[in-house]
């Protein structure tokens, strides 16, 4: 049965009411952000929950660079691997495990003298007897 004129009038009035009230509805996504909050906090406020991923840290970055270096080393790309560790070292200049990784890379390239020097320097950043000190000591060739 085709809709009557009364039906059309009802539909029209319903639409008018909808449009009228639509102005009262708040739209969180378009609300001005509070600039005093960080992006992190703003996103938390907007979504009402923690963002999808936790904020990265310096340690995460150094770990990631070390991981990438290991991957490069695994396929024999020594220079690239070394460059990644050095990049990490510029971020964490006293991280002994970076010296350990550099010493390993030097050794695998046959540069035992270089490995010894790097390992010796790494040893200056660790407490004697620690696990990493023992690892570093393995690369120190007797003079």
């Amino acid at each position, binding site marked *: 049965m085709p809709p009557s004129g009364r039906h059309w009038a009802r539909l029209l009035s319903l639409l008018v009411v909808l449009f009228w009230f639509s102005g009262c509805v708040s739209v969180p996504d378009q609300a001005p952000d509070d*600039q*005093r909050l*960080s*992006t*992190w906090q703003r*996103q938390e406020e907007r979504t009402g929950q923690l*963002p*999808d*991923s*936790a*904020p*990265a*840290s*310096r340690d*995460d*970055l150094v770990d*990631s*660079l070390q991981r990438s270096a290991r991957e490069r080393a695994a396929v024999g790309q020594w*220079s*690239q691997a*070394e*460059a*990644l560790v*050095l*990049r990490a*070292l*510029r*971020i964490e*200049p*006293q991280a002994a495990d970076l010296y350990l990784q*550099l010493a390993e890379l030097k050794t695998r390239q046959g540069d035992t003298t270089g490995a010894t*020097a*790097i390992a*010796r*320097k790494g*040893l*200056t*950043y*660790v*407490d*004697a*007897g620690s696990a990493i000190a023992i690892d570093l000591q393995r690369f120190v060739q007797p003079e």
Partner: protein
Amino acid sequence: MAKKPTRSRSGSTRRSAAPKSRSSRSSKARKQSRGALWRWRLFQLSIVGAAVLIAWMFYLNAVVRDRFEGQRFTVPARVYSEAQELYAGAPVSADQVESLLQALGYRQTGDLGQSGRYLRRGDTLSVHTRSFEFWDSPEPARRLELDFSQGSLANMVTPAGQSVLVARLDPLFIGQIYPGSGEDRLLLPLDEVPQSLIDGLIAVEDRRFYQHWGISPVGIARALWANITSGSIAQGGSTLTQQLVKNMFLTADQTLWRKGNEALMALLMEWHYSKEEILEAYINEIYIGQQGRRSINGFGLGAQFFFGSPLRSLNIHQQALLVGLIKGPSYYNPRRNPEQAMARRNVVLSVWREAGVITPGEYDRALASGLDVSEVPGDASYPAFMDLVRRQLDQGYRRQDLLAEGLTVFTTLDPLAQNHLETVLPAGLASLERSYNLADDTLEGAAVVTRPSTGDVLAITGGREPELAGFNRALDARRQVGSLMKPAVYLAALEAGYTLASPVSDAPVQVASADGDLWEPRNYDRESHGTPLLLDALSNSYNQATARLGMEVGLAEVFDVIDRLGVDERLPAVPAVMLGAVDLSPFHVAQMYQTIAGNGFYSPLNAIRAVVHPDNGVLQRFNLQVEQRFAPEQMYLIQEALHHVTLEGTARSLQWRLPQSWWLAGKTGTTDDNRDAWFAGYSSDRQAVVWVGRDGNEPTPLTGSTGALPIWADIMAGLKPNQERRGQPATVVKVPVNARGAQVSERCDGARVLPFLAGSEPPERRGCDADPQSSDDSGGGFWQRLFN
């Protein structure tokens, strides 16, 4: 060769037949003969002309092919700074990153749709970074939201809120090395050039490009007509090929000879090469700007230079401006003459609309856009640092390798540190002049900042006007270093078995040199200070105690330590060297203290991270060189002594100049009559050396503490080194000692805990005033021992 006909033979035959008719016939014959002669001569000339033309064409052909198939473009070695690493926790403030973005030519705008743009809102920066091909890996362009807190980068996410581990800003272009012609360009293959730009270029400069063979008679006729009607040279009839030929091989002279050559070479070029090859060459060759002696060639560099964005990400209105610049790069320079540039851009846009390159809608939008030019070209000039780069390249490369076209040199320069240094040093010198009532601009200075872990040189200033490429004091000013040399004496003593608590006599001393001269060093205050501990003698910079100690240890041992610290200069073999009577540059001093800051490991100071060849890839990359020169224990002790200098010694003002929580180590240096004021020191992974003095070596009222140290403190305040301190070597113990160097109870007034090599610490004594040499029985009785 054809034989020349003679008139006499035919003439005599006709004369003998009939005189009258003979005369008319002979006249006709003469005319015919003259015509034949001229024709013959013309023919001969044509032959000669054609031969010359062919020879000339062969020559021009060789020129065209030689250049086009060989080294097509001059591309000087381009030098870049270190890239700023962005990661959560990076010690950079929003202000610093914004200043760096501005130096890189990023534009602040709410529209971040294009790389090379940013928006600052409070402590948040939204950035659309540029892509860059680094020597170790490519960096993509991306949108980042950076949140800063308390002077460091707290968080970095994508606009969607995804955390980003690390990103690199593109490095700052800091200059060229050995430019052959001053031309600079970024070579782009044709497929990386937007089609709209190609179509637009052809529409404006050479509509019949795909139809003609290098020259366009129609174009020439049109230009001729336009010039005749306008009464001036309003239009050129040159094709793109002719323009390319002119730019590549010829001068801009308006002579027929040059135009003729241009036409011939254009024809030859079209004969040998495809339209695409010619177009690609044109796009990389065309001159569109100038920066000092540097000529900006090609659209690739033009986009970077004027808009701070790669060519492929330019909008229509920006592309139109680039094409418009071809007509007059100086007159239409958008930074200098924005109105003319805007008018020219709009003319280009209207041509594009008429030619159908853009739609009317695109035209309207482009017309409504501003010029969108970056304020600065996205580069910087650091002559003192570039000087060092050149010298280090000269040491490691042959000149012809450096002249290979298109090398990219990645350096260790930290633009933030460099800009900070260039601000702090002149300001510090001006402040000293005001404080000491000195005439303006009479003091000079130099400074070097390094990263001890790797030996990277991060910043250098060669004078108070760092932008001038004059005398580079950081590298070339050899000045007496004064007390900066003392740590070598104390290090030699520690190696010889002395401890930081060893008593050292500060009584006046006389040393006879080999030639009979008497050396009598005096303390700065002209007084003797009894028998201070070795630690105090160093931190108070006592000359007499140092000279005595050095002579006790042995001059050869001290010189050996100086050598191992990395001073490779030939030093005079005299005891005065121990107190710094030796001329060294700030760079030499930085190398020397680098070994101390590097825990006793020598690493050569280095300004070059990598050198990349456009075809052969990485030619050289930085390789961490470390060479152990000192035992970690002795180095730990001297570092503690230098730390003590900043706590209680000549550099104690650092306690209020910088946060007290910072671990600092360093040494002041002052020479006779205060001619030189030095401070060398480090904190965690940042080392700086500052020299202040006068070029003419005249006295100043300044000491290391009052002249160089305040500037050093300001440098460090801006560098904000991470405060990390390595662990103590296992063989080092710390025990409390009294002012006489005896190990006493920690509860004694004035007892200080000092580090000792295990086994070298003084024996325990009872009594707070005990003498280290005395036995326990000599001092105090039962009651005193009980309460100790």
